[in-house]
């Protein structure tokens, strides 16, 4: 089963003809993901290494059965691309694009939820279900199939922890990057709920960072609604207030969103929090013993 992406995924890449979209789209296909089409308005009729390029997402859905869209469109046009995908009828939208204005995401967030469409990102590395499908920019080589679900606001930090798990002989059901922006399509709670319901996932590692209150909400959810054990990591203990730390969403506003507050909230709900990525991977390994 896994979550979000699997062997049922039929992928359309919006922006397949751009350099990033092409590179990662073809990598995803090489991994085994069913890539059915690309969309670039005005370039319909072309192809990228045998993948048909269409003018609209609607064509990809109607003619090629696309059910998942990956958005590689530049930020000024990305919101429009996301709306197009939602209206075309895909069930999952994964937006890799970084730099989408936060106000655009407020509206998209409300819109996508009202239509029951699942969205990851923006500013996210995508999702990988090892051995099944990879949609996004996660380096699949460093992960193996297994029972640990991994959900994170960060890319490389997740790869680090996943890599350490792999070296200890532990695999993953699905690795999910929810994105580093202030407003993203799916929250930690949304993904935790999917992991809780996924028979292939037995344990979960949650990787959070400063800014917002999604880790705090996750802590409450885990305590009240999850039976599967979770361990966590939080980045940004030494971040100064008011500074954006790489991710647009990684900012301490006033006294809200600190790493200490998140760690305390998680621990208060009985969730162990590692002080380093390595310790976090070790805590996850302990769960499996």
């Amino acid at each position, binding site marked *: 089963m896994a979550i979000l992406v699997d062997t049922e995924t039929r992928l359309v890449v919006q922006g397949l003809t751009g350099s990033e979209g092409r590179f990662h789209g073809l990598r995803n296909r090489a991994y085994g993901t069913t890539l059915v089409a690309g969309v670039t308005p005005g370039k319909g009729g072309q192809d990228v290494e045998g993948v048909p390029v269409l003018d609209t997402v609607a064509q990809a859905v109607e003619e090629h059965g696309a059910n998942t869209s990956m958005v590689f469109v530049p930020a000024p046009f990305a919101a429009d691309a996301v709306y197009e995908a939602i209206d075309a009828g895909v069930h999952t939208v994964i937006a890799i694009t970084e730099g989408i204005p936060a106000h655009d995401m407020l509206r998209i967030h409300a819109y996508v939820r009202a239509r029951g469409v699942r969205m990851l990102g923006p500013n996210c590395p995508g999702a990988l279900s090892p051995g099944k499908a990879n949609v996004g920019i996660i380096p699949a080589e460093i992960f193996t199939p297994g029972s640990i679900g991994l959900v994170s606001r960060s890319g490389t*930090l997740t790869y680090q922890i996943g890599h350490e798990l792999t070296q200890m002989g532990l695999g993953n059901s699905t690795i999910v990057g929810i994105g580093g922006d202030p407003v993203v399509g799916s929250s930690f709670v949304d993904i935790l709920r999917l992991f809780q319901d996924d028979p292939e996932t037995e344990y979960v590692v949650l990787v959070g960072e400063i800014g917002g209150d999604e880790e705090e909400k996750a802590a409450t959810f885990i305590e009240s609604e999850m039976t599967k054990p979770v361990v966590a990591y939080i980045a940004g203990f030494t971040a*100064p207030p008011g500074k954006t730390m790489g991710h647009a969403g990684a900012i301490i506003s006033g006294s809200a969103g600190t790493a200490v507050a998140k760690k305390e909230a998680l621990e208060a709900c009985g969730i162990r929090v590692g002080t380093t990525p390595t310790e976090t991977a070790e805590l996850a390994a302990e769960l499996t013993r």
Partner: protein
Amino acid sequence: MDLYEYQGKELFRQVGIPVADGRLATTPEEARSAAAELGGRVVVKAQVLTGGRGKAGGIKLAADADEAEVYAREILGLDIRGHVVRRLWIEQASDIEREYYLSLTFDRGEKKPLYMFTTQGGMDIEQVAQKSPGALVRLHVDPLEGFNPWQARRLVYGAGVTEASEQKQIASIVGKLHDAFVRFDAMLCEINPLIVTPTGEVKALDSKFTVDDNALYRHAEVAEMRDLDATDPLEALAREKHVTYVKLDGEVGVLGNGAGLSMSTVDVVTFAGGRPANFCDLGGGGDAQGVVDALEVITRDPQVRAIFFNIFGGITRCDEVARGILQALGEMSLELPIVVRLDGTNAEEGRRILAEAAAANLRVSPTMLEAAKRAVELAA
């Protein structure tokens, strides 16, 4: 991006929120002529991106142009919580009968804009929220529905504004604040205080305005408002070179790839007993030019005594990153000790490449914690 009071007021003016007439001044002489042009009593206000200006002596009421010049001389150059005053806003003095508070913020948790309004203005809003939560009216706006006039009425009646003309004026300002919030992609629009004059006129006496950095591409006029003189010089250099950099106050220069891993690296340096000099994210890759640019920014900080590279190779393989680092070091003459920790795809190959290069100041460590300890020792 945070705006100065006068810049926020300019945006208020553009959407029709009433503000007092004023002029910008950067010298005492300019302050004098601004005051003379405005006529009558003026307020000389320090323009800094921090609170507590009044208590720090950054706001003075001047009876005339002469006095405005005297106060301007006092306030210019003043250090307010680490912010040096370089700009003054000279504004026609307003008589104050009552002080209210009105704001519209980007509520991340609820994913909606949030209005807050209280008749207990002029003080810290968090205090009002704590001491008399009942006096603070909060109301979310549906991002798809947008603003509707009933919401202004909810705020105005809910907070207990009784005077009819005041109700009308404030309701209008509430709607216009939403216009400003949406039109300029604001993360925060705050009016504290929103005043009522003895003649019953309502206007914004102060402004706090933050615009989403990711939306600046569609607001050229706002992007130009950035005051490069007020930015940390290292952060300004980083911006110019498109390096993601935040200045901290320590001795270990830090470079990581990816925002999360870079944040984690800064944390690990602290846990190892050291003090990070900066946060710096090389991005997902690690190409030579990116490394050169980042190193130029980091080593410009005279406090830096050692450098810690923390790289996880994913799609960009560690051997490529190692070559990038060597190429970058070849282009620069760096004498500082450097600790490199490489992990992930082709890590062994990458470490071998670095070890063979055998630069005297370059050390390779296999784990993040060990590398951090090494870098901290070298910076001591």
